[in-house]
């Protein structure tokens, strides 16, 4: 199974990388960029076929390691 995990900064948490990207884009002459937020995208290949177990496992992985829930949110998609 393949899981796709998005980790994004919580609202209100400053995002130095996003800000820097926005600035760089405007330096390069791109107009209309209002806000940029940078997050992480993690793909995990999992053994097994039980999506329910998998989902529980992935949730635990995110909460315990992949995301810092003080500043980040996460979301999980699972392809069977």
């Amino acid at each position: 199974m393949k899981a796709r995990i998005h980790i994004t900064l919580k609202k209100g948490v400053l995002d130095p990388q996003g800000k820097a990207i926005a600035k760089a884009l405007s330096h390069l002459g791109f107009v209309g960029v209002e806000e940029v937020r940078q997050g992480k995208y993690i793909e995990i290949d999992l053994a097994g076929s039980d999506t329910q177990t998998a989902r529980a496992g992935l949730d635990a992985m995110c909460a315990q390691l992949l995301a810092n829930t003080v500043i980040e949110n996460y979301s999980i998609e699972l392809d069977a």
Partner: protein
Amino acid sequence: MNSCVIVFPGSNCDRDVAVALEASSGTRPRMIWHGDSELPACDLIVLPGGFSHGDYLRSGAMAARAPIMRAVVAKAKAGTPVLGLCNGFQILTEAGLLPGALMRNAGLKFICRDVFLRVENNYTLFTRGYGPGQVVRIPISHHDGNYFADSATLNRLEDTGRVAFRYCAADGLINADANPNGSLNNIAGILNETGNVLGMMPHPERLISHELGGSDGRAMFDALTALVQCA
């Protein structure tokens, strides 16, 4: 003084801080491997600087989940002084022993240079060797030192004297120009509620003698040593 330095894969200031501790206390600290699950009896635990696990995913994230950290948390809760320097500070926040998070420097670049710090609270185990509001020169060397916490947490830190050090100008002024990395309120180091855990981004162990260009860092290790000798 009986101190323990925790060594994670990728730690690289473990030896430096051991040298500083030995210079002040005359005793060589025990180096404890991250995979161990128990800590010997000790007067001080140090989480050193470096790039534990390459700083991959998030600085300090993987180290904070190492087996030894359960023992560190237990000792910290029981009152043993814990000092986290640079990567050690990042690990302490990831482990939940200190609030907030250390994000990428606002300028996005790694910065290695001496900075000035104002001692905001010199009534702590770690900072008793400094005067109130004293300005000290200590190097920073990090990519992720931009301190962030939500406003409630920040207020709590400020109101209870838990900001130990702030980045400042040479004359002690706290302003944006003196802030090397974008940290909220120019925060360079904070304490836990009970005052026995200090995390700071600067490296006091790097300026402990005139050969190295200064000794403002030494007072911290001297103070910790004296504390134990009194007790």
